[in-house]
């Protein structure tokens, strides 16, 4: 199974190299970073600079997940390869998870990119007083992101207009995930909704990692991210199986 996982990772890396448009969000991240940094610095709020850098990076991670992972099954179907994949003895869920994992890891380059833009164009550096916790948070976030993406990749197979979904799911999640504006600043009635989205826990914890004082309740907060990831994985895998069975049943595996 490990060999299959790495073969799928290698395949996804080759696909990304041949189709760089899938990583378009890594190209747009400088614009986002510049816009956010310009706003906070011109408002005299240098204390919010780390928020701006982190916000742009997390938006990139989410946008990449939506764009690439959302289209994963759909593009196989469109290209006529889904039939061959289903006729092969490889567990489909392993392929999907492996490929989404690589995309998620690559999208985290956005963090470094955003920090680099801040340093090159604005001369600011972002200190990381808690690097270990930051790394752990990123790992847990990657796990939850892969789980959440597996839901999207399954769900978008059923949606006739996957791209409309992709577009409309970006900004609500930027907001509800507290990527730029912390959840605590959102209207009270919206906060419970935010708390079931792992990104809101991730964003808060990452911001805390950039503060000098030790983040409170780090372990339980990490556990919530992982827990939400596990739920997403379970939902994604169940949905994938159900949807694949459904399209085998109704004869819509391919478009031909």
């Amino acid at each position: 199974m490990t060999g299959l996982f790495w073969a799928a990772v290698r395949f996804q890396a080759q696909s990304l190299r041949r189709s760089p448009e899938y990583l378009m969000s890594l190209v747009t991240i400088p614009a986002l970073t510049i816009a956010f940094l310009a706003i906070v610095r011109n408002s005299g709020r240098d204390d919010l600079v780390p928020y701006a850098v982190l916000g742009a990076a997390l938006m990139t991670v989410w946008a990449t997940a939506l764009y690439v992972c959302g289209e994963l099954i759909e593009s196989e179907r469109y290209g006529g390869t889904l039939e061959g994949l289903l006729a092969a003895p490889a567990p489909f869920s392993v392929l999907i998870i492996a490929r989404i994992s690589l995309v998620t890891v690559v999208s985290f380059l956005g963090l470094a990119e955003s920090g680099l833009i801040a340093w090159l164009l604005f001369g600011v550096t972002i200190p990381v007083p808690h690097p270990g916790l930051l790394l752990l948070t990123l790992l847990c976030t990657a796990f939850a992101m892969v789980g959440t993406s597996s839901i999207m990749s399954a769900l978008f197979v059923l949606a006739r207009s996957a791209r409309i979904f992709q577009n409309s799911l970006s900004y609500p999640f930027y907001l509800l995930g507290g990527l730029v504006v912390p959840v605590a600043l959102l209207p009270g009635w919206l906060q419970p909704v935010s708390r079931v989205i792992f990104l809101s826990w991730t964003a808060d914890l990452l911001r805390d990692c950039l503060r000098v004082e030790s983040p409170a309740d780090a372990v339980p907060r990490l556990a919530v991210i992982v827990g939400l990831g596990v739920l997403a994985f379970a939902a994604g895998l169940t949905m994938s199986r159900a949807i694949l069975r459904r399209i085998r049943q109704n004869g819509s595996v391919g478009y031909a």
Partner: protein
Amino acid sequence: MNTTDSPAVEVRRLAREYSRRGKPPRRALDDVDLAIGQGEVHGLLGPNGAGKTTLCKILCTVLLPTSGTALVNGFDVVTKTDAVRRSIGIVFGGERGLYTRLSARQNLRYWSALYRQPKAVGYRRVEELLDRMGLGDRADEPVETFSRGMKQRLHLARGLIGDPRTLILDEPTVGMDPVAARDFRELVRELRSEGRTVLLTTHDMAEAEALCDRVSLIDSGRLLATESPRTIGQWLSKYERVRAERVPAEVVSHLRAVPGVGGVTAAGDVVTVETVAEGAAGAVLKVLVDGGVTTVSTVRPSLEEVYLHVIGERGLAVG
């Protein structure tokens, strides 16, 4: 179940319906019974929409049947999907089904992993297949730069990557040039000599005649008959058509009287003679040559034409 003794394909009362919004369901397969022995090359012959691809998709577990059973190498296609998938290779016709931005080698290496081959074994097999299909020289170029025939050969390589006991080829020669089609026929003969079972769908009666041990005719989802290629050959010669130019009127009269001639039609300078009996085409040619006609050609009947004749003559209860 011991799978080596069982037929490679065993289909009983297999049916598949597609539901349609606001309309009665369309029956793509209707109570199909079929058995294909191990090591047999079996042709599935039928026009577009006959149900050939539907049957292939069910056999390779991509589509679920509505009713009936289908076993491949002894494994049920609904309940033992993993065992079925490990024992078959599938090649769908057309240009889709490949990762066109990747190279042929990258495509095949990925597929070898999907067929659960250890990396070293898979990579070795990829190189063998690239050579066997004549793609070795362009193995590292993106597939999108390949000709249609090359893509088709890559499809075949993909079908063989898992070293399958049974290979399902759905319209494999679509888009192949004559040389590639000849090479393909050679490949199918090699596969037979290796003891593999091949289920081949095609429109081309001559191809079925040349390659298959037995041929099943399918139309409107029903299996009409399973025949030997010899019978197919007889159909081909029986329903041959002769075309001739500048045929004198008295020769046309003679042609109408030749035994086995079903009809003679004239359009401008061209006279077309339809035959309905084996050997009749030869007699027609003799009359034409004896009458001084030198611009003559013979045309083999299309599948649809043979269908019309065969179904019409037999009065098969297809409905």
